[in-house]
């Protein structure tokens, strides 16, 4: 893994993982995140919450990682959500219209609540 990117995760119940992405996510480091996400999904997680509180920079290569996985996750009843974006990172999401296709919320708890609501709907 490149030194400029750090990824940690925390399992929250069945199939839900919070992934903390810190540092610089560009074309150089994006493959590290892609590998991490692929492994997380391979472990059976379909609800992924990305906490971007300590993400300093993101380019299209980083955003492409989320785009690469979201369709498959949604087809399987899962989803990707985002929490704690800084103003700098949110400005890029907003510019690309990502706020229209992804849930972006202030806190992990709010994202988890949205996942739980989705799970309830799916199980009805």
């Amino acid at each position, binding site marked *: 893994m490149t030194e400029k990117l750090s990824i940690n995760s925390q399992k929250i119940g069945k199939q839900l993982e919070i992934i903390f992405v810190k540092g610089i996510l560009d074309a*150089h480091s994006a493959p590290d995140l892609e590998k991490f996400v692929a492994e997380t999904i391979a472990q059976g997680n379909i609800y992924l919450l990305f906490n971007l509180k300590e993400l300093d*920079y993101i*380019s*299209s290569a980083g955003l492409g990682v989320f785009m690469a996985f979201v*369709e498959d996750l949604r087809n399987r009843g899962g989803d990707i959500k985002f929490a704690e974006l800084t*103003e700098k990172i949110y*400005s*890029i999401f907003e510019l*690309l219209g990502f706020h229209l296709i992804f849930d972006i919320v202030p806190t992990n708890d709010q994202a988890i609540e949205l996942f739980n609501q989705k799970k309830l709907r799916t199980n009805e």
Partner: protein
Amino acid sequence: MNNIINKISDKITIKADLTELDRVRSFIQNASLSLGFDAITSNLIALAVEEACTNLFKHSYNFDKSKEVSITLSADSKGMEILIEDDGPSFDPTALLPIDAEKIHKNLKKGGLGLFLISKVMDKIYYFPKDNTNIRNRLILFKNFV
């Protein structure tokens, strides 16, 4: 303002190597901030230039690290100009503009996100393929001060 512009006029040459992106970002961000762009806008301009470089590394140079890209900054009373020069096969990215946001959102696994970002951040984009007069392709990105 003119004194600042004279100081800002600057150039870097980088290898077609993804490890060079850090240097590109610092170069553009520092210059943008010096010219009075706010932190958010400076970050977006750096992002646009990085995307242009990444596209060249990938599509024009096929990640051949012996190849080079030059980035030259200048400014006038209206805004900042970033000239990006390469020696690869000519390819006019402006021919793909405008990019429809809805298509980007629907074709989630397809490319084009980098160019879409550049087009959203910058106010003007020009491309001049290499010819008998100019031995390098030139992509010019312009950002207005207001």
